[in-house]
């Protein structure tokens, strides 16, 4: 039972001052085992904050990140799943599912976590699952101003993943969940 937080596109301090209070009160250290951050934090303080939530932090570089040392892509294995991480501004057209699928095949991962569009999305195709946690602060994106703050928490348990989506709609936190299993079929012949 591994809890993995997928979060990103905070754009602190340029486009947003801080995470919404309700999100902050929920994100306490000690519960989460890994954090996958899509990028665009943008400053070191946010990095420190995320680090305090969980020591195992993975970040990829977004176009506005001030730390240039983050990698473009990252892959890691958690339990039975291979996860990939990428900010997404490199994939053109932005948010296009077919192109993201290409990246997924390239990285050879079961779950790909990307951002940049600031819209939550969870999509399944033959190669695997693409998850976009959206923007945790609700910062405006290059595409739209209308953004709900959101992030994603994945509970990886054996061959099953439960994805909890946390969204702030009209000032209230709304939590949904998505269930999927990794079956032999989804494992394409690699």
């Amino acid at each position, binding site marked *: *039972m591994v*809890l993995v937080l997928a979060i990103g596109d905070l754009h602190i301090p340029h486009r947003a001052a801080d995470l919404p209070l309700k999100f902050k*009160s*929920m*994100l*306490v250290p*000690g*519960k989460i085992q890994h954090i996958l951050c899509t990028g665009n934090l943008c400053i070191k303080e946010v990095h420190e904050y995320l680090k305090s939530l969980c020591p195992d932090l993975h970040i990829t570089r977004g176009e506005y990140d001030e730390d240039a040392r983050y990698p473009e892509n990252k892959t890691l294995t958690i339990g039975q799943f291979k996860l990939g991480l990428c900010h997404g501004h490199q994939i053109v057209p932005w948010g296009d599912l077919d192109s993201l699928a290409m990246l997924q095949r390239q990285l050879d991962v079961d779950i790909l976590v990307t951002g940049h569009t600031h819209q939550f*999305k*969870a*999509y*399944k*195709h*033959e190669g695997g*699952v693409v998850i976009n946690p959206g923007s945790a602060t609700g910062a405006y994106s290059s595409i739209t101003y209308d953004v709900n703050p959101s992030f994603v*928490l994945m*509970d990886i*348990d054996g061959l*099953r993943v*439960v*994805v*909890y*989506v*946390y969204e702030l709609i009209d000032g209230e936190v709304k*939590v*949904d*969940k*998505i*269930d*999927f*299993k990794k*079956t032999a079929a989804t494992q394409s012949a690699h």
Partner: protein
Amino acid sequence: MVMKKKSVPEWLNSPLWYSKPPDDRPISHYNTKTLRPDSSPPPPPSPPPSPPPPSPPPSPPPLSKSPSLPALLGSERSDLPSGEPSPCRPWLEEEPRDSELLVDFRITVRVTLHVVAAPSEQLLLGYFPLDHTLWALELEKKMKQYNKLKDDLLLNPSEITRRMEASAATKTEELANENIGLLSRSEIKHEDHPLSLSKTSVWNQYFQEAEILEQIDRDVKRTHPEMDFFCGDSPIAKTNQEALRRILIIFTKLNPSIKYVQGMHEVVAPLFYVFRNDLDGTNATFAEADTFFCFAELLNIFRDNFCKQLDNSVVGIQSKMEKLSQLLKRHDEELWRHLEVITKVIYLQVSPQLYAFRWISILLMREFNLTECLHIWDVLLSDPEGPQETLLRICCAMLILVRRRLLAGDFIANLKLLQNFPNTNISHILHIANKLRGPTVD
């Protein structure tokens, strides 16, 4: 209930024991059933005790002090000759002999390996009905109960939520069919998500208990480092540790009032060891379940020692230590004065708080090795005066035994001595403890 007396068993007549004629003591301080005595100590196992009404099994989890506690296997007790001169503590000058084991069994953990099989312990802890034939059935029943407890309590929240859904709708069919497309979102019931801060959330409870579980983990790893049975890298040690862990976790969850106190692992360890190494192979498989229930019973007796709120109350551990002090004063005023008055350092005296806390709360597990401890526990639990009183008497006896060294030492030396109690002959201690019997201190 009719108390049938058995004639003095063979082993009691051996020269090791007092040869005075046995004195019959009225048995019950507890209104329980009495039985034909079961002589479980060595040599050949006596015929099984006659069937009395079986004591109701401690279910559901023995939270309340079960009145069904002891099924008294009443018997005789060889009493000490009353004509012994009391002052000058003559027993010290006597040759140490095997203590007069109280053949008055009520509840007891059995004495080590050279004794008959585990059934005696389970009997004594009121765990088994007294009818021999029902034992197998009881074992099965307890095993089932334990498994159910394991199932209910040892799950992590993911599994719990999965089960709750499985009982709800079956959406798995849809998932399999969906090959491509946006994944459908479903509502969460009862606000139960991993980051939930609500009290009813399964996840929240899980994280709150995580600290206690960590503590249990750490303690289990440290149990009895000198024994291969528990410690080390062998698979056996690992499975044993796992079993101990499970037992402690389930107990903690079932007893939120006392939770887990450091030291409980010391109490479980010998129980598990004994049950596991049972001579009669069949019982060994039920070891874990049995240990759990017996452990719960045992802790029930000493429950007050572990409850933090009761610490300073009349029944709590502080008062026990007070009683110990009074007991010592009553029996050995010189020693008491030396410890509490003369060797004071500023306002610190060698009071029981400093050394006896561990003795009392962990039932002397840490002071002696495993076999000796089991011996003590046997006596503890089979004494008609009650385990609490007996424990205090044994502690007092321990003090009196080393009195020469204590009287010669100062604060620091005494404290060191008492906190690392020297190896002594257990029988001697028990012998003295027996002699300290008397009207209870008020």
